[in-house]
């Protein structure tokens, strides 16, 4: 039996007014695969991730999640539950304690009993190393801690896919490691992940595949070693020479 891809994107286009940001992106992601997306600023990496869970509505193209086409009229919220998202700026809910941040969606969206939601949330907070911060407010945490809470919050919905949009870009250098470690652990557990990042070390070590985007297109893709060591496209070479 052929294994069904977790995500299949066919010919995705997205324009903001006259500005064409995605110009026909196609991508297949297998179950358990970790795909790292790199590319210069403005190349459409964030827009691509945000189209996957319809935070932006694609202009045209198809997205299939586990073989089912994403249709905002039919299964939008279902699809969003299946795709956890972690943002550059954390976007924690500042008026709620850490524990409530993690339990809110499971309770309200999945209808899980409060005690059960809390038990699961505490387990997840333990997993990201923040068991003792359950009763803190987000503004009492460091950036790295906030991002780990955000990861726990997304995981609480038990999504099939995790989307990360530059999860360490807003962090002080000494906090980047603790967030990447959590992501590494998720990858080892076999989670399907799409990660936009500038952390090339992470891409090399954890990524199954690296995708280089430029001007709204996938310019090059392949295993990290290959893309980093022997980039085929001139634009990839140029980009890598600037950041490595």
């Amino acid at each position: 039996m052929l294994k069904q891809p977790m995500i299949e994107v066919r010919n995705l286009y997205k324009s903001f007014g006259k500005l064409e940001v995605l110009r026909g992106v196609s991508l297949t992601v297998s179950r358990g695969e970790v795909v790292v997306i790199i590319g210069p600023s403005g190349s459409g990496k964030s827009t691509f991730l945000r189209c996957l869970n319809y935070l932006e509505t694609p202009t045209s193209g198809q997205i299939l999640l586990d073989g089912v086409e994403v249709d905002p009229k039919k299964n939008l919220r279902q699809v969003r539950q299946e795709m956890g998202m972690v943002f550059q700026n954390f976007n924690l809910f500042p008026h709620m304690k850490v524990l409530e941040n993690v339990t809110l969606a499971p309770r309200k969206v999945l209808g899980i009993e409060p005690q059960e939601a809390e038990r699961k949330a505490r387990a997840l907070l333990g997993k990201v190393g923040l068991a003792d911060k359950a009763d803190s407010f987000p503004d009492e945490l460091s950036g790295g801690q906030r991002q780990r809470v955000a990861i726990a919050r997304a995981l609480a919905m038990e999504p099939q896919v995790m989307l990360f949009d530059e999860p360490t870009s807003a962090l002080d250098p000494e906090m980047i490691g603790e967030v990447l470690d959590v992501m590494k652990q998720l990858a080892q557990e076999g989670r399907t992940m799409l990660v936009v990042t500038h952390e090339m070390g992470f891409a090399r070590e954890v990524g199954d595949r690296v995708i280089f985007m430029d001007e709204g297109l996938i310019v090059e893709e392949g295993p990290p070693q290959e893309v980093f060591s022997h980039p085929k496209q001139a634009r990839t070479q140029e980009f890598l020479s600037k950041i490595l």
Partner: protein
Amino acid sequence: MDFRWDLVWSSMPLLLEGTRLTVQLTAIAVFFGIIIGTVAGMTRLSRGPQRIVAAVYIDFIRGTPLLVQTFIVFYGIPGIIGRPIPAYWAAVLALSINSGAYVAEIVRAGIQSIDKGQTEAALSLGMTGSQIMRHIILPQAFLRIIPPLGNEFIALLKDSSLVSVIALEELVRKGQIIIGRTFRPFEVWLAVALIYLAMTFAVSRLVNFTEKRMKIHA
């Protein structure tokens, strides 16, 4: 100079009676103003034709004097419904409708001030629009709304003096009555002013206090 402090004091009992009505009218108008304003402010931000109704209401009220609005309610509406409206209820109605429009703008600004990332995070978790409004946006907007809301209530407290024109014996009207008997406008108006000042000062302190208590995690 012949300034009669004794008149300031002896006016107090009657003025405080009027003060009670002023406070009562303001409190009721504040209560309904918050309800009307929250609904109108949220409607103003919604999609669909009801948005226009909210916009017309808000613009009409903010673009016309409260005095005229009070006349419309007290003298105008009875002509349409065919029976008089008691001055008290006319005042409550006019003040509530008036305050609702200002509160609506405060609510709208408060909601719009919440970072878009909050909504996006909640959407990405699969929450619905109304869940996001209830659990994420409104609780945060509420904190930012408190200071301007406090200012609005101070304004309403002062503006409630306008309903003296429909013979409601609130603070200003009581002052006029006392002057009619004593012919000492300076002392009496000064006493009236001091009472307003005490009230607005108290409200603004209360708002500051609440703001400080709640600001911790915003």
